[in-house]
């Protein structure tokens, strides 16, 4: 039965939940397809995640391999193909709990970096799973800085082979997914040497395990890197190469080739390849970053209307904890951020699709801007969402700490996103480099890409808000964000110039300004996110209450951002002390307003109970019964050998015999 505390929340929704779900999916037809995929996956017991929280690393890995194998069968059965409309929903339906994800990266890198001949040879083998691929770039001692990789591939003209080596311990490949136990092949990135000359990093296809009995190939040492915070189902691995020989044809050679005589030839433009790598950062946002935050919000908000604690008014029933202002302050800004990032993700996807079309027409003009946006937003969104999930976890008090809440595993998984595909600080500095360059160009009257034209329009004005309602005006808050972004970029640019003019070397000056540069990049992304949310809201249909509730969330996202960073807005007097009090007042009002629709707003994310896999967050709100039932399934409730071995002698005072 439905918990009445949740029913009452749903009865008072100010908008149509189904319409909002369709908006998030990009249309009612998409919602239908997604639900069909979810239904097909969740009704199949092989894909069940029911016992996940009780499994060991070995059991998790085995289940993931089993699911990956079964998925092939399922796709065939259902008629799903990699190019079909269902495909993108499969991963979401599995909650990512499946092996061989790197197999796709392996295939993509061959498609992008390989010659036509190589594609014709390897792609069919991979498609039919005659081999299982991985992607070995990161080393024990090297991640961010690709040029620093130490693995070597030396061309031997006599035998027409590359000889691969791991010259020292820090050069060992470390972290690649699926490599510890599963993969038979991997793409190894190594420093290419021909006739004693180093040509830099190149990709090579290397077989690491036998296709017969899965034993390691000669010269290969490989294994699992051991337990991590999450991804227990993935065998992240290590790889040591000792005089491993591969044929000349195994160097992926779309862009660079070593001819039989050892001549090194560079051909074509690598820009499209560079673009592909940039795209990965955007493609991970939806499934790896937004979904966990949306799930965490769903769990924490539903639980916060079921959980009652202390009294707000004497003599009354204990209050729902979501009625406490301090609980609203924790959760509702995360909810607003989830929507804000959903819309910025839509915007980025569209921009990248346009960029892709342009690049196919050999127009590379958009590349620097796309690179800056993908770096900055990958960093901003992963950082915000990771912090958001952790806030949701702690907002659920003690029960949030139980694995059965689902929150710890959401958190430990999402937080890896702050590091993979580019460490966030490094990425923000890349965005900052673009901003500084564009700012200098704009100051010199040169044209700059659309997303940064605002840098040229420096107007040192003041915020024009007269009362707290003015802070609900997108014009007012968007301009405030713009002002801060311009100020941080321009002042850092000036500082850099000052340092360089005073004789500091360029790279030293850069390092001395990096703290400020990171702030400028964040401010830039925050401004664009706010602006995009406001523009999206304006275009929404006014029917069914959708636009109104989205306007509230947009206001909350913007005003909360000011409230949590007042210094940036007060600095230089753009916002006055009195205006900042108005911001606070507006912010607190918005918490109370969005509180009313909090449960319908998370219902609209449309996660099934199975996909949430949380005793606290189920749709029916039967929190306590579920917690009790699930706990009893724990393996720790089988009689432990600890009693006979240690407790009994302890209790019987025969300790000395231990």
């Amino acid at each position, binding site marked *: 039965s439905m918990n009445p505390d949740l029913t009452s929340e749903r009865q008072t929704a100010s908008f149509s939940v189904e319409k909002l779900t369709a908006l998030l999916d990009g249309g009612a037809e998409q919602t239908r397809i997604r639900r069909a995929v979810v239904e097909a996956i969740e009704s199949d017991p092989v894909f069940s995640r029911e016992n996940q929280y009780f499994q060991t690393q070995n059991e998790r890995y085995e289940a993931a391999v089993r699911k990956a194998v079964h998925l092939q069968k399922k796709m065939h059965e259902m008629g799903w193909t990699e190019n079909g409309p269902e495909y993108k929903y499969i991963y979401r339906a599995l909650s990512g709990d499946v092996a061989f994800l790197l197999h796709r990266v392996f295939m993509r890198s061959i498609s992008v970096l390989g010659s036509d001949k190589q594609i014709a040879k390897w792609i069919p083998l991979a498609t039919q799973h005659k081999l299982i691929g991985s992607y070995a770039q990161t080393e024990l001692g090297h991640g961010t800085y690709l040029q620093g990789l130490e693995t070597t591939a030396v061309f031997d003209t006599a035998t027409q082979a590359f000889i691969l080596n791991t010259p020292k311990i820090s050069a060992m490949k470390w972290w690649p997914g699926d490599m510890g136990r599963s993969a038979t092949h991997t793409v190894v990135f190594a420093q290419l040497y021909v006739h004693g000359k180093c040509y830099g990093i190149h990709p090579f296809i290397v077989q690491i395990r036998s296709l017969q009995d899965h034993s390691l190939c000669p010269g290969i040492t490989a294994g699992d890197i051991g337990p991590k915070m999450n991804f227990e189902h993935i065998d992240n691995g290590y790889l040591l190469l000792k005089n491993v020989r591969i044929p000349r044809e195994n160097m992926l050679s779309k862009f660079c080739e070593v001819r039989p005589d050892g001549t090194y030839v560079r051909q074509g433009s690598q820009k499209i390849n560079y673009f592909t790598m940039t795209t990965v950062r955007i493609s991970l946002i939806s499934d790896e970053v937004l979904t966990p935050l949306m799930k965490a919000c769903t769990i924490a908000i539903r639980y916060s209307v079921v959980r009652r604690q202390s009294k707000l008014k004497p003599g009354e029933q204990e209050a729902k904890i979501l009625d406490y202002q301090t609980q609203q302050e924790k959760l509702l800004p995360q909810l607003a951020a989830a929507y804000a990032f959903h819309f910025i993700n839509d915007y980025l996807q569209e921009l990248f699709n346009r960029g892709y079309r342009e690049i196919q027409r050999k127009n590379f003009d958009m590349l620097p801007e796309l690179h800056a946006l993908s770096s900055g937003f990958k960093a901003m969104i992963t950082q915000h969402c990771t912090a958001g999930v*952790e806030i949701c976890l702690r907002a659920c008090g003690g029960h949030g700490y139980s694995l059965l809440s689902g929150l710890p595993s959401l958190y430990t998984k999402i937080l890896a996103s702050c590091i*993979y595909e580019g460490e966030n600080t490094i990425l923000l500095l890349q965005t900052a480099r673009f901003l500084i360059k564009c700012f200098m160009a704009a100051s010199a009257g040169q044209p700059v890409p659309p997303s940064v034209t605002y840098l040229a329009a420096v107007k040192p004005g003041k915020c024009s808000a007269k009362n707290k309602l003015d802070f609900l005006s997108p014009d007012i808050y968007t301009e405030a964000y713009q002002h801060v972004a311009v100020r941080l970029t321009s002042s850092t640019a000036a500082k850099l110039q000052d340092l360089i003019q005073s004789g500091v070397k360029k790279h030293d000056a850069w390092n001395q300004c990096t703290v400020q540069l990171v702030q400028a990049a964040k401010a830039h992304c925050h401004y664009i996110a706010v602006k995009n949310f406001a523009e999206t809201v304006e275009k929404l249909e006014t029917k069914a209450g959708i636009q109104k509730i989205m306007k509230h969330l947009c206001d909350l996202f913007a005003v909360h951002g000011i409230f949590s960073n*007042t210094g940036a807005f*007060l600095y230089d007097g753009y916002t006055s002390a009195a205006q900042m009090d108005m911001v606070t007042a507006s912010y607190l009002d918005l918490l109370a307003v969005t509180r009313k629709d909090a449960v319908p707003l998370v219902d609209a994310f449309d996660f099934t109970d199975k996909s949430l896999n949380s005793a606290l967050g189920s749709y029916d709100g039967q929190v306590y019964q579920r917690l009790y039932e699930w706990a009893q399934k724990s393996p720790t409730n089988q009689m432990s050998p600890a009693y006979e071995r240690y407790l009994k002698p302890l209790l019987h005072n025969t*300790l000395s015999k231990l």
Partner: protein
Amino acid sequence: AAAMSMNADLRRERAAATFQPELLTHVLDGGPERTRRRKEIEALVLNDPDFQHEDLNFLSRSQRYEQAIRKSSLMVMKLREYGIADPEEIYWFKSFVHRGRPEPLDLHLGMFLPTLLTQATPEQQDRFFMPAWNLEIIGTYAQTEMGHGTHLRGLETTATYDPSTQEFILNSPTVTSIKWWPGGLGKTSNHAIVLAQLYTQGQCKGLHAFIVPIRQLGTHEPLPGITVGDIGPKFGYDEMDNGYLKMDNYRIPRENMLMKYAQVEPDGTYVKPVSDKLTYGTMVFIRSLIVGDSARSLSRACTIAIRYSAVRHQSELKPGEPEPQILDYQTQQYKLFPLLATAYAFHFVGAYIKNTYHRISGDISSGDLSELPELHALTAGLKAFTSWTANAGIEECRMACGGHGYSRCSGIPDIYVTFTPSCTYEGENTVMMLQTARFLMKSYTQVTSGQQVTGMVSYLNDLSRQRIQPQHVAARAVTVRLNDPTSLVEAYKSRAARLVESAAKNLQAELNHRKSKEDAWNRTSVDLVRASEAHCHYVIVKLFTAKLAEVSDAAVRAVLTDLCLLYALFGISRNTGDFLQAGILTSAQVTQVNQRVKELLAVIRPNAVALVDSFDFHDVHLGSVLGRYDGNVYENMFEWAKKSPLNKTQVHESFHKHLKPMQAKL
């Protein structure tokens, strides 16, 4: 691997330090004699083969519980054998044995035994204390229920007195009333002190404590009427069998109610307790431990992240030069050094609360409890402030270690999952902040009604003076001296005063608009929490500054002064809005603060490794491959990984079960 020499980078770092780390260690321990004794106890544990075991990262939860219970049993025996009885020394011994992790006997030793001592009658002590001391009885403390934590009065478990048999009948009437979370309850304990609503003669007399046998002595099977078990896997606390307990018409004799204070007579007559303010003392003590734990957990994370950042090289700072240590990047220093300064600040705050508590508890026996309410209010806020900050700081340290921080071999995931529940237990942090706020509001009201307040809130007395001179605050702006910690203490004081006043005024405005006090309080609680945070922040800066004068060695004092300045200035740079809005600092001064912070990063850089060495964590206690004292990180990561459970066999069984059949079919 044992013969490996020290990593050259770390050797260089240590040689370049401007002070002697062991002198700073003495400051942290409270004198060279304390350091000597701590290391002596540490050696007792580390040299004892009984306390050795496989890396816990490779064990299942059941195995980890088993290891913990084995070590706990031995620990109790050896503590008595060695005659270690001082509470702090017991704490050291325990934390070396369990390497900073919780253990199944924590509640028995930390709650069950002390509760017997303070709340049992002499007759009850005769019956229960010695068996419990000898571990024939193992007990836990069952307060929290599935549906109730913070609000004690809301607990639902009932104990109904039956005069005909002179027994209490215990019941868990609803699912939400099931006892949930008590440590050691799931598998270990055979008794529990249960908190329940007492009913006698048809009336509810509120919460009381009862000694309840839950498992059969001898077989350890649950007794009839008792349902007990483990609550399942958690984020951390793998060693601890947090449990559930459900009671159905379960009868215990009248004599099992803890009756030193309140009593139920054989006929059911209830005798009220004399007022008992001493419970304040216990709460202050436990919360002071959490402040100390915040400091230690953050120190461990900083030790790992800073040593690793000195060993790790990446990218290039100068074209053509070798890859630099990542600790040379300003962004890395900006992540780690403020946390290092914070760890030191929290050490001194923890020591202050502990000392103040001991001083006041001396007074309790002589009847002077006047300082206790303030200390109680202050420790609530400091517990929340330090645990929130340390919680976030540990994560920042882990993140600063990049991908390798995510591996369990870094040790930081373990520190995090062990520490993070302290934001919730012993008083949920937001609730704690609001308790401090209540005290601040009370003090503010006293001041506005013309009374003087004393202690840490005495700055509120100045508010009335400022009202007479409206230019006062603005005039203060130019006087803040960025290199003088005492001047920064004044700036924090002004900020706290302003936020307390602003919260008080908003509260008053809400009260003028609405009927209920509770409603007004709730609608101001965001402001109230901010006020409490500002107050705690002020107290911490003040205590850190005060500590400097006590340090005799000039080199140590110099480096601590740098850290103190960094702590204070970084706090300002992170909260510039408060200082700007109140007119305490101008925009130009904020720019100077930001600049000064960056200069201090460079000043602290040469001493960074020595500053974490001073925390003096043994490698075994640190439990981190990245944070090893000798810095031989990569070799040992490889050694560690080879022991992973997935590497037990060369070809994993999944290959034969799933992979091979698939390849055959496709």
